[in-house]
């Protein structure tokens, strides 16, 4: 340890008293932070990442019980009073929080809030501070910074506010910037911008950055070193390339292999880690990962493994750490399943045909007498087709019209504009009984498994509920329910348990079982894994693939996560501001995107592989999604498009005035005047 440390965390433990027992949020964590480095702290939700970063900046809630040491310049921060600690906050240690929408004071100007940060620690005048605030905004690439200091937070978009947060963090050139999920609440293209700025922030100030996240891809591109947390402990730590290439702790190995990647061309079954993270009030006696670990033996229960040095500059907390590599190469740990691939259903029966579908919402103004001043087109003339046994994914950033599209399909009534044909029947010509029959064959699974199950209903009954509506006999219901539980990988004996006894992943399985109860032909999935922990996502994704193989069911899948789409879908439609800009077979669209937006979107998705991620050329889009209330003229993407910018003035004028039609380009449907070619 020759290099000087900026911060040293020694045996830090944090617990919270709670009604169900002591919550062990952080357990015996030791971590060194070196000057100027980017350290990625990765873990699933509840693994203690936030508590760790809050302890470092001294902002834990009063109920927290803390032990151990956090040393800054030889001073133990844990022993300082609020007053003494506040001298270090913002000056030596700064923090960027997850939710930029609520992190700023709504009733003060942006400039004032940045100036305040300067005035707390520096002897300068308010005017100078305000001027410096403008300069900081400029450094964070906010357009017209010296005007924008007078703006209030609500006048800024989420991505802009996160830039303001980073500006705040670097205001006093701190030694360490803690960033807790700084890009999680943002859309991918904006996430890419913010991560870029975070990198810039550390270069500008020379500060060490501790990047806390659940997303392996995010750290892969940015971090020099990585620490993986599980159930409050660091289980593996080391230089990022080595850990990714050759993970040593079974949890890390599983995690890295369980993540779908956008840059994979062939479909594989993901590795899925059994079970779900333990409750922090009832941890296993020895290794916390033991109940889920494929390398578990009895010694794993004997004691809590310490984080010990491993292969020089790494450390690992596993009692069998020296045997793991052997197990992996012998294929005994997480054997990769043979890819069965999707059903090659030769039938091209069209189950769902949507053409020129539009949906607008009235734009109202006024208080007493509301009047319509215009329309917002949430969905604007989109067309797609879902074939039997296939999965069609609609991807796009928040607000692009994905959910509106699904709801329009689910409604089964004549749309405002265009045509929806389900199972060969035009929905505008359906009789009541036909509509009911179609509902049976068209089921939906929502994002949040916690909200979609009634907490007072045992899961078995929840699954039988849809059958009740279609008057299936009680005994049939029971057998079917048992079958379904088995099908989605749950124990039928647990049918009389309540949803609260199941984890997020299990609940999503229950919701899927319920949706399958009536043997639907189409399952609509609205972000089905977004609300789930990283390590249980793979299990649900595998289940979906398996169901497709077994039942030949078709999916209409909506997601903002391109890696997930690449993994499950056969066809993909990319949406931007209410329109489809490109659609085609997944392999084709993802391997050689034709629309500039598709290309930028793919490039913004972080790839969980430091080698690939750090070396690849990235397209960072400027600006953010325009509001659909006031969409750009011509091609709706033209104000952010990097292709048009590089072209002649006449071409640019064409993009800005003429809306491109969908046309076939190298086998994909693309709406662009100047598509990218292979």
């Amino acid at each position, binding site marked *: 340890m020759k290099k000087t440390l900026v911060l040293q965390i020694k045996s830090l433990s944090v617990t919270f008293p709670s009604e169900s027992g002591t919550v062990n949020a952080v357990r015996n964590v030791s971590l060194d932070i070196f000057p100027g480095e980017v350290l990625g702290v990765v873990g699933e939700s509840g693994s203690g990442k936030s508590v760790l970063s809050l302890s470092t900046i001294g902002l834990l809630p009063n109920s927290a019980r803390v032990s151990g040491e956090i040393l800054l310049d030889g001073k133990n921060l844990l022993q300082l009073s609020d007053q003494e600690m506040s001298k270090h*906050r913002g000056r030596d240690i*700064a923090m960027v*929080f997850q939710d930029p929408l609520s992190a700023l*004071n709504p*009733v003060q100007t942006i400039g004032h809030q940045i100036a305040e940060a300067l005035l*707390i620690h520096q002897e300068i005048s308010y005017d100078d501070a305000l001027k410096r605030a403008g300069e900081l905004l400029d450094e964070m690439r906010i357009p017209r910074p010296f005007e924008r200091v007078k703006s*209030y937070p609500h006048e800024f978009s989420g991505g802009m506010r996160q830039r303001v947060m980073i500006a705040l963090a670097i205001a006093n050139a701190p030694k360490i910037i803690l960033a807790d999920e700084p890009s999680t609440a943002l859309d991918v293209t904006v996430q890419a911008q913010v991560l870029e700025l975070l990198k810039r922030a550390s270069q500008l100030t020379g500060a060490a950055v501790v990047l806390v996240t659940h997303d392996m891809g995010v750290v892969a591109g940015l971090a020099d070193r990585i620490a993986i947390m599980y159930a409050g402990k660091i289980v593996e730590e080391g230089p990022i390339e080595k850990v990714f290439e050759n993970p040593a702790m079974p949890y890390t190995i599983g995690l890295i292999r369980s993540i779908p990647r956008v840059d994979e061309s062939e479909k594989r079954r993901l590795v899925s880690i059994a079970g779900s993270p333990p409750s922090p009030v009832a941890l296993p006696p020895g290794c916390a990962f033991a109940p889920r670990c494929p390398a578990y033996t009895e010694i794993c229960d004997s004691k809590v493994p310490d984080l010990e040095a491993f292969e020089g500059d790494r450390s690992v907390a596993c009692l069998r750490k020296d045997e793991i590599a052997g197990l992996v190469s012998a294929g005994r740990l997480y054997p990769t399943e043979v890819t069965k691939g999707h059903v090659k259903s030769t039938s091209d029966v069209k189950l769902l045909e949507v053409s020129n579908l539009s949906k607008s919402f009235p734009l109202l103004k006024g208080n007493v007498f509301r009047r319509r001043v215009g329309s917002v087109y949430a969905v604007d003339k989109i067309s797609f087709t879902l074939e039997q046994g296939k999965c069609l994914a609609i991807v796009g950033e928040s607000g692009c019209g994905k959910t509106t599209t699904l709801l329009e399909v689910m409604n089964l009534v004549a749309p405002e504009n265009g045509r929806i044909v389900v199972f060969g029947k035009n929905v505008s010509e359906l009789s009541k009984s036909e509509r009911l029959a179609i509902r049976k064959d068209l089921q939906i699974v929502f994002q949040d498994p916690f909200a979609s199950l009634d907490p007072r209903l045992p899961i078995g009954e929840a699954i039988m509920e849809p059958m009740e509506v279609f008057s299936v006999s009680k005994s049939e219901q029971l057998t079917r329910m048992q079958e379904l539980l088995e099908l989605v990988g749950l124990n039928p004996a647990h049918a009389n348990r309540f949803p609260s006894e199941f984890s997020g992943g299990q609940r999503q399985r229950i919701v899927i079982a319920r949706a399958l109860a009536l043997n639907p032909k189409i399952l609509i999935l609205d972000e089905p894994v977004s609300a789930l922990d990283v390590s249980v996502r793979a299990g649900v994704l595998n289940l979906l693939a398996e169901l497709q193989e077994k039942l030949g069911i078709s999916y209409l899948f909506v997601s903002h996560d391109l890696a997930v789409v690449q993994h499950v879908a056969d066809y993909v439609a990319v949406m931007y501001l209410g329109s489809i800009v490109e659609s085609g077979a997944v392999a084709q669209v993802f391997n050689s995107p034709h629309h500039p937006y598709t290309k930028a979107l793919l490039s913004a998705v972080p790839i969980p592989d430091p080698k690939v991620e750090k070396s690849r050329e990235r397209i960072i889009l400027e600006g953010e999604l325009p509001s659909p209330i006031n969409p750009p003229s011509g091609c709706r993407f033209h104000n952010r498009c990097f292709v048009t910018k590089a072209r002649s003035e006449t071409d640019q004028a064409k993009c800005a005035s003429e809306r491109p039609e969908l046309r076939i380009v190298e086998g994909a449907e693309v709406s662009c005047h100047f598509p990218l070619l292979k």
Partner: protein
Amino acid sequence: MGFIAKRFANFLLLVIIATTAGYLLAASALNPRENFLGRNPPVPENTINSILTQVNMNDQDPVLQRYGTWVGGVVKGDLGKTIFSESVNEEFKNRIWVSFRLLILGSILGAVFGVLIGVISAVRQYKFFDRTFGYSSYIILSTPVFLIAILLKFFAVFINEKLGFTLFYTVGLNTPEISGFELFVNSLQHMILPTLSLTLGGIAFYSRWQRNSMLDVLGSDHLRTARAKGLTKRQALFKHGLRVAVLPMATFFAYSFGLLIAGAAFTESIFGWYGMGEWFIRAVNTNDINSVSAIVLFTAILVLFAGFLADVLTAALDPRVRIR
């Protein structure tokens, strides 16, 4: 400013709607003719009719015609006659000052102390201070207003007896036939109890609201950001917490002040203050349509004006509401 003009137009419209509804309701629910029935000797039908017509309350005239007459007066500043053929304007002038004296002080004290206690309770959540004021508030809020007033009266009488002289007066505005400084002190002594009875309710009410609003702010992300910048807990609270937490109270205060005018009826009756609230009760009992309508008109104006002020105030304090 367009914002204010628009609000004002809204406000006028709502006042008109509220008063029209108020008048029509009063005119159909109250029957002034009853006042003259069953008297001994009986009042002749003709006399009744002529009295009622004179005060514009004759139920034999179509209600819309009476309403028209009433409105015609109101726009000229004449609120009509009471059932006793006296001027509503005069009665109004006498009573409004009595009510304001009581209400302004009562509500302001209630709001100020309520907000203060609410803020401290939130900061010291579950500590002694919070619990004490929490329980007291619930007790006060669940006790009917008149019971509080009567209890205060008993308490005051008890203290007066112990002291041997009258510290608290329990009835009226002041003792008659005194003047100068003596009158001033005497008026204050009369004011304490009714004001207190209103203030207690106000404190209980506002402190609960303020506590919740403050707790929200205390747990908010932006307060955490403020501390992460290097402000101590206390500084962050004063510089960032208070304004955000007190903001919603402004609207709340304004509306409840307007409503209190009629709501203080019990307090006024019990302490013998002949104010607006007491007038309202009396007017309803005597089937005095014009007085009731005048009070409704006044309350509507007050509530809406208060709301209007609150909106303007909120807009001044909260940039999110400005120019929308």
